[in-house]
């Protein structure tokens, strides 16, 4: 496995590991208020007047920044150590586990109503 492949795999794995709790606990990096067209850093409450607050953009930003930091740190680790990890398997197993977790979190949508 080349270094580029390994780092791309680490980015995808880190993104999935960070994204799952981020969407569950709302660790959003930014909030968008669509009616007012206002961005706010971090988690912000709706501004009122029936305006929703959108957190998903912030989930992507949180996870992308976190994954970029993890990937940057992994680039500093010697290849001989990283070669021992089965990155190719983890690169799809971890996102798959994240999808199952997210499905579990969202399952109440399927049962209520």
């Amino acid at each position, binding site marked *: 496995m080349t270094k580029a492949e390994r780092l791309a795999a680490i980015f995808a794995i880190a993104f999935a590991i960070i*994204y799952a709790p981020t969407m569950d606990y709302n660790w959003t990096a930014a909030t968008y208020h669509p009616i007012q067209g206002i961005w706010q850093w971090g988690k912000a409450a709706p501004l009122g007047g029936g305006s929703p607050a*959108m957190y*998903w953009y912030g989930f992507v930003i949180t996870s992308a920044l976190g994954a970029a930091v993890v990937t940057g740190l992994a680039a500093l680790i010697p290849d001989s150590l990283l070669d021992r990890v089965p990155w190719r398997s983890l690169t799809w197993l971890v*996102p798959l586990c994240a999808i199952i977790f997210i499905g579990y979190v*969202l399952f109440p949508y399927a049962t209520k109503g």
Partner: protein
Amino acid sequence: MQVGWSILLIIHGILAVFLLGAITHQAVGAAWPVTKKGSGFFQSVRGVNGMSYTNAVIILFVVTFALGTIIYPTYRVSVRTVLQEYRFFKPEGMFEMKEHLLALSLALLPIYWLLWHKASAANRMARTAVTSIIAVAVWWSFLTGHIINNIRGFGS
């Protein structure tokens, strides 16, 4: 203004159709490759050269995703509120799942490109699995978008 959003939504949908076709061909070819030459529809689908779809899939995914993020606030204000009002929880939950599946798929694109760019027998399992995850995400998103559009889409 409403017409502008509808045009963007239609372009988003058309690009999603192209993406769906490309990723489905590639995923089928990777997961169920032909073992012997033959003619016929299924043999042709299974026998595609997956590598030739990679760049198109990435460009279509990124552009469709970007258009989706632009029209997303309109959904949040004009459509999701209606789903909640009429207690359409299942389509609302499907859309929630769609946005999370696509975010995870977006992060898979760099390794997806590298796995196909340097396709080998050693990375076949990972290549097939990553392609299949993206294909499932695209199918889920396409069907969800179609259902949401049926509930409250163009002209409603």
